[in-house]
């Protein structure tokens, strides 16, 4: 859509196409550092998505002759096996699927709640804003991790519960950020003119304000995903996350920690996968933030 015409507003606005904009951002953020870590991350994601089809083992395929077997290419276990004789590489890739999916889903949940809440609060303003922000302040004081733990303990240890719990508590930051941005945008000339033309409030927010927040939302998403990966892994480590036969990286790290004196690779490989992913995401998030919000550099 190179030019959008809107009959109700009575004039047309030339906008750069989405693709032009994406390429512009890409050129802006594409430093060698970003490209390196971006490639590593892409490799991890692709490996987790498609790798399990190629390792030749099922996630729970047990080889009794190879319990706690050290890494060995010649015997077909490149990262060794775990205490139940299962191929560690396969389990790490499956674990990555779960960790990444949960993190992405939870981030989307928190994004939806947070953006909506922040936009409403900031745009309406006045007493509504005051009340809504006091509620956020109050929620900030709640010891949330304990609620997540409580939820995980009380309502079965399923992936769904975990990600709803995390997504529902991680929206506070984004709500604050979006509200601040909306506050500063809503008295800009282009918003005023839309309002004067009689565009309804909901449409002003959707069409004219939120698109301007895309950058900040992208940055926030990139920085939230690793946080949620860590949170979910911590739950998994405590034995409160996903349960056997499924495994997330946190669960695998916990399994490894139990046998690290005899079979350290069972700890080190999942730990490395987890750390590398979180690290790449943090680097990408920082790079994007420097681009979209140079002040915080």
């Amino acid at each position, binding site marked *: 859509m190179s030019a959008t015409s809107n009959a109700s507003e009575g004039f047309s606005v030339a906008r750069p196409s989405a693709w032009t904009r994406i390429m512009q951002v890409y050129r802006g953020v594409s430093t060698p550092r970003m490209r390196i870590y971006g490639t590593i991350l892409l490799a991890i994601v692709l490996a987790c998505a498609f790798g399990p089809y190629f390792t030749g083992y099922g996630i729970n395929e047990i080889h009794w002759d190879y319990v706690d077997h050290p890494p060995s290419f010649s015997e077909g276990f490149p990262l060794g096996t775990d205490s139940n004789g299962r191929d560690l590489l396969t389990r790490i890739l499956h674990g990555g699927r779960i960790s990444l999916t949960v993190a992405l889903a939870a981030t989307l949940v928190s994004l939806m709640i947070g953006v909506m809440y922040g936009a409403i609060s900031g745009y309406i303003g006045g007493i509504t804003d005051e009340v809504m922000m006091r509620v956020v*302040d*109050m929620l*900030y*004081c*709640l*010891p949330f*991790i*304990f*609620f997540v*733990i*409580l*939820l995980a*303990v*009380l*309502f079965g240890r399923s992936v769904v519960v975990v990600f709803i719990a995390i997504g529902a508590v991680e929206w506070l930051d984004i709500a604050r950020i979006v509200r601040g941005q909306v506050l500063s945008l809503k008295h800009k000339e282009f918003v005023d003119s839309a309002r004067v033309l009689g565009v309804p409030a909901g449409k002003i927010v959707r069409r004219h304000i939120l698109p301007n927040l895309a950058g900040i939302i992208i940055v926030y998403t990139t920085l939230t995903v690793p946080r949620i990966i*860590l949170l979910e*892994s*911590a739950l998994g*480590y*405590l034995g409160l996350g996903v349960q056997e036969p499924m495994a997330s990286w*946190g669960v695998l*790290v*916990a399994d*490894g*920690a139990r046998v*690290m*004196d005899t079979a*350290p690779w069972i*700890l*080190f490989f999942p*730990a490395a996968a*987890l*750390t590398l992913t*979180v*690290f790449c995401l*943090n680097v990408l998030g920082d790079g994007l933030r420097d681009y979209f919000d140079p002040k915080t*550099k």
Partner: protein
Amino acid sequence: MLRHMLRRSLFAIPTLFGVITLSFLLMRIAPGGPFTSERPLLPTVQAAIEAKYGLNDPIYIQLINYWAGLIQGDLGPSLVKRGWTASSLIEAGLPVSLELGMWAILVSLIVGIPAGAYSALHPGSLVDRSLMSVSVVGIAVPNFVLAPVLVYIFSITFSLLPVGGWGGGSYANKILPVASLSLPLAGYLARLLRSSMIEVLAADFIRTAIAKGVSIHRILFVHALKPSLIPVASFMGPAMAGVLTGSVVIERVFAIPGIGTTFIDGAVNRDYFVVLGALVVYATLLIVLNLVVDLAYAVLDPRVQMD
């Protein structure tokens, strides 16, 4: 300032109310109870026990009773551990967790602030680059990964330090848990301080001070450090909360009998009053810590007006 503090303290009441009501309801609608076990009790016996603890009253009566007890400082009995009350369990665990958290914060400040300041003074130097690489690793490695790795190196390979336990609070038992809690924090602090101090050092008032002939140490420690610490102070709120939550995991890893262990065991066993008590303690701690951070913020930054 005083008004601000008062308002914030008043805020604590609805927050605590929310925490208690929410967790109370959550626990009661969850399946299972403190007296469900492999061998079910006779229904009459179970009813008698529940009556003893008032668990068969309507929920709102139970909530009111709990609040009435709380105001008098009574957190209720432990439903699972004979002879313990929620308060006595918390009193046993809290000092351990607090000590752990205190040391973690202290160590991260002692390590992070000089590291950040040094890097800011010598940006691009070898020391700066190595410090910043270490801090990035410190931030990215979660504490539940770092902790077992440290145990593997120092306890299993070199047999220098105990694998776990609290050992009555001996220093050897504290080193690894404190290190795993404070390394990420120290890394974060160092990076924050570095970037804010580089900015401050480029400011006009520093140039003026140099031109006036103020000694370099005075410039660093009096003129530059204070404004550079502002972002650090604002980070300390989330940081302390992070130590608090991180300690739940670390207590598990090292089998430390802190309040995090009390909380998780309580939740697993549906020990209602113990879980509620631990949550009340955590929420109060968070509120108090946020207040302290606000104060530190106001002290450091004269532009902050509190009304």
